[in-house]
């Protein structure tokens, strides 16, 4: 394995910086994978996950490029300072798509690649979908823990129903603990947390009832107008997904079971649109147990690698 620092310019002539990992024994088909940065994290991703994945993929014979989009890491440009939610939302709507398309063209030409794949974590997974729906050069996508809803101030300030459920389940474990009750009656419990969690769950219950009613009449989220009724659902992502699938290309979805994004993805996408027969040949969905949004456990990272490897073998 060899690493090389590379630079190329985006459409606004800003210099983007990346690290290319060159395999010792390249796959004869000459395949490449581009790893996309998560949110405003730079090219290494959470706990250097992209560094670990790049090493793994190069050992499997892939050329790998992980790069900083404009305003991130060592690349030129600057994102507007201010509320992070606005930046997240911009990313979730495609802020880094043009940079990614440039990276695809640059990487393909540099290494004379015949097949190129995009792998994105969180916001990077959405960037991957948008870019692949626009350019045919992308052979496949590995979408890891990408959110199906758009970030908003309201959503970040309020407890997520999944988190509320989790908190209450943690308290549920303490229900037979004498010490826990002692803390509760002596004023030492976190009443605010309990209250917020209960309030959120009740709100979520009412909302689910509303969604069920909505689903009953509308069946799925195919109609864009109707999609707007789904609170904060990312319509652009769904449209890109449909375009992408129409070309017959494949996508691997990987999610963590202990992640609010997974809960939303299952509720709003996997159990609705992805149920449709016409999409079933396009995607594979996998969930890794006992892990969080950032795949912090070593076991989950190893499972992630196995799932990726298997998907590449199945789709060779």
């Amino acid at each position, binding site marked *: 394995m060899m*690493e090389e620092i590379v630079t190329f310019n985006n459409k606004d002539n800003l210099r983007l910086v990346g690290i290319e990992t060159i395999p010792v024994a390249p796959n004869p088909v000459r395949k490449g994978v581009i790893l996309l940065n998560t949110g405003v994290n730079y090219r290494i991703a959470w706990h*250097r996950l992209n560094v670990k994945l790049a090493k793994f993929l190069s050992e499997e014979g892939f050329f790998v490029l992980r790069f900083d989009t404009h305003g991130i890491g*060592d690349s030129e440009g600057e994102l507007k300072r*201010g509320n992070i939610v606005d*930046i997240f939302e911009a990313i979730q709507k495609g802020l880094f798509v043009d940079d990614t398309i440039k990276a695809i063209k640059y990487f393909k030409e540099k290494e004379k690649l015949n097949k190129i794949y995009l792998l994105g974590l969180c916001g990077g997974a959405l960037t991957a979908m948008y870019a692949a729906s626009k350019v045919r050069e992308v052979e496949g996508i590995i979408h890891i823990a990408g959110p199906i809803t758009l970030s908003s101030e309201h959503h970040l300030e309020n407890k997520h129903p999944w988190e509320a459920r989790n908190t209450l389940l943690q308290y549920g474990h303490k229900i037979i603990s004498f010490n826990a009750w002692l803390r509760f009656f002596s004023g030492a419990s976190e009443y605010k947390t309990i209250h917020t969690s209960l309030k959120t769950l009740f709100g979520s219950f009412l909302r689910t009832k509303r969604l069920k009613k909505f689903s009953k009449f509308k069946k799925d989220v195919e109609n864009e107008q109707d999609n707007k009724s789904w609170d904060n659902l990312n319509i652009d992502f769904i449209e890109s997904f449909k375009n992408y699938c129409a070309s017959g290309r494949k996508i691997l979805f990987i999610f963590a079971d202990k992640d609010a994004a997974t809960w939303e993805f299952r509720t709003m996408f996997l159990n609705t649109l992805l149920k449709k027969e016409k999409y079933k040949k396009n995607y594979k969905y996998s969930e890794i147990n006992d892990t969080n949004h950032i795949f912090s*456990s070593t076991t989950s990272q190893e499972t992630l690698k196995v799932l990726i490897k298997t998907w590449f073998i199945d789709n060779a």
Partner: protein
Amino acid sequence: MEEFKFINNRVGKKLYGVLHFPANRESKEVFVFSSPTFGEKTKSYRVLGNFARLLALNGYWVFRFDFMGEGDSEGDFKEASIRTRIEDLYSVIDYLQSEIKQQDIVYNIFGARLGATIASAFAREKLVKIGKLVMWDPVIDPAQYLLEFLRGNLSNQLLIHRKILLNREDLVNQIKSGLEVNVDGWIVGKELWEQAATMNLFVDLERITIPCFISLSLGLDKKLFGAEKNVHRSNFTLFNAPQEFTWSDWKNYNPSPEIIFDKTLNWINENK
């Protein structure tokens, strides 16, 4: 202008670094950046990169790099300790001595968070002549810092098992017995732990006689520094900084915090 490169450290591992050139290549002052660790490194990467650019614009050479096992440098995070980080600083000085072919170069160290504490330990060894030391929110007690960092493991246990199976004390015992502990994906091992336990910023600062700028934005640290007599000597400048950005989360995205940039740069210029 900046150049991206891999350099070798003293044990032959590749370190990723960025050399920022001043407009005047005759400049004799260099700043070596000693980065934070864990998620604090990722979250402040852009801020430190922008500060390096500002220094270069103002006539200083800057080399910022990833310690072995961090960022884009070679090695696993778990292999790196406090000592390997200090050794990497020596490797960087070796490299700069061959890269900047000038006489009477002055090496200055800039450090942030744990990187600042490592910078002070490096300066204290006095094996390389250091001109100035600049620190942003140095970690005063690395052992306590690591102990608090274990909270990430506890939160993850709650998330996965809905209860704590191993408390903080159990985790510390695991680390001390040579088992690794995973905190938010970072593997904390015995060597890092034990070496951190021997460090104390105030003890290091006591032996430092070079001009030193310390910016503090964290409330508790401000109190601790306030009570510490040794850092009120004439060679120390303490700056009570507002929280223009945070080390641990994004919330308010600010890649170029003006106040801390200006104050630090002014102090550096005044102490040429």
